[in-house]
């Protein structure tokens, strides 16, 4: 616990880094940023298998977005597919966007991934992010795991009574029952939690008890991060 960095530094760094990389149109920035991401991922000791799996999922969405770029960007044609012309500029542009997104994702994942949602929510509170937004984020995250647990419980109960998921109409019916039970239960649970909050004087503001204490090494990390960001910004814009 003792060597932990103040999570606010990571959040601000990630935000500014993403801002620079997202608005820059230079390959050097993306390249350097990507290397930084790899370095940070290595330093946070992320599991390679798990990370790749998660990136594959995110990249699938990303691919759907960039897939049209090679065909819609004007430029020198390389391949002709019927009425569509794949251009060199388009291909490079798509690759550029793809790498850019992955760079930001990698740094976010390396810096914020290992933190738990509570730390992040606290830090956002302290950074004066609107309370409603923080609560939205916090409860979404908090109750996603609760929903998952609830669903696992329902599914296990069904399996213990001989349910084996198949691609058959009878199976689909059971799935729909499980889903319906999940929705009803989560709704009930959510309203009970809300009532419990009301009874303890909740009026829309989320008070934070635990405050972060700024350590000397936090100053070190902020200066280091600041120098890096200034360097990246000058590379990107000058």
């Amino acid at each position, binding site marked *: 616990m003792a060597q932990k960095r103040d999570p606010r530094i990571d959040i601000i760094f990630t935000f500014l880094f993403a801002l620079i990389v997202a608005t820059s149109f230079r390959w050097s920035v993306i390249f350097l940023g990507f290397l930084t991401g790899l370095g940070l991922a290595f330093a946070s000791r992320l599991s390679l298998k798990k990370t790749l799996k998660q990136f594959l999922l995110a990249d699938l969405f990303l691919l759907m977005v960039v897939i049209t770029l090679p065909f819609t960007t004007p430029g020198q044609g390389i391949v002709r597919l019927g009425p569509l012309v794949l251009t060199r500029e388009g291909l490079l542009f798509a690759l550029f966007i793809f790498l850019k997104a992955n760079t930001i994702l990698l740094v976010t994942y390396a810096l914020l991934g290992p933190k*738990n*949602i*509570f730390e992040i*929510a*606290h830090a956002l509170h302290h950074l004066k992010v609107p309370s409603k937004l923080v609560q939205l984020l916090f409860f979404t995250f*908090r109750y996603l*795991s*609760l929903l998952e647990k609830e669903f696992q419980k329902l599914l296990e109960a069904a399996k213990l009574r001989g349910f084996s998921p198949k691609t058959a109409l009878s199976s689909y019916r059971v799935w729909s029952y499980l889903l319906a039970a999940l929705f009803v239960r989560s709704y009930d*649970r959510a309203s*009970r*939690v809300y*009532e*419990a*909050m*009301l*009874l*303890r*004087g*909740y*009026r829309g*503001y989320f*008070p*934070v*008890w*635990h405050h972060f204490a700024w350590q000397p090494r936090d100053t070190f990390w902020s200066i280091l991060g600041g120098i890096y960001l200034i360097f990246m910004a000058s590379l990107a814009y000058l």
Partner: protein
Amino acid sequence: MTPLVELKNISFSYPERPLFTKLNLALWPGQRLGLIGPNGAGKTTLLRLILGLEKAQGGEILFEGHLLQKEKDFYPLRQKIGLVFQDPDDQLFCPTVEEDLAFGPLNLGLSREEVARRLAEVIELLGLKGFEKRYTYKLSGGEKRLVALGTVLTMRPQFLLLDEPTGDLDQKNLEKLLFILKEHLSSYLIISHDLAFLEEVCTEIFWLEEGKLTFFKEGKAGKRQAFSSFRLLN
């Protein structure tokens, strides 16, 4: 003298079944009440009516002599009457034990020093030393129940409503609960199916069935006069 809370001629029914017609109940400081009755008799609903989580279809609810009608009218009542839910998972939502215990008092607008004092007090009372930074969702069932009780105690309620507080408590934690109820609290109403438990901690036990609240039997606990239900013995 006016009672803390008074329910007068309360009528309430769910769409599928009627529950209460003309139910009367008064809660006084210093009362240690037990409530027992068959499943579905409306024990939990009665607590929800007191706190304004359910709105009665007829009758009146008074808090310190004032008639409560709108949602806002119930705010002062909820600061002085605490409810410990049947399922502690409904009650705990903050990341750490400490945060959850502090949520109520911080909402009451107390100073940080006062909140710290109350946290220390309740942690000591519940024997939760070392649990401050633990994640609430990773606690065992019994520990969750104690912390859920703690989240209400830090608000220093004048009257405590407990819904089945003995569920999934082991012998050690049950004794802890008995000790807290007997030695540190003076005013509460407890719902339980465990008659022996109720007899131990209550002065009077009531039976709720078919919308009727009737005196069932006396308990063994001594009656105490006190104005705050939360008292620490030094």
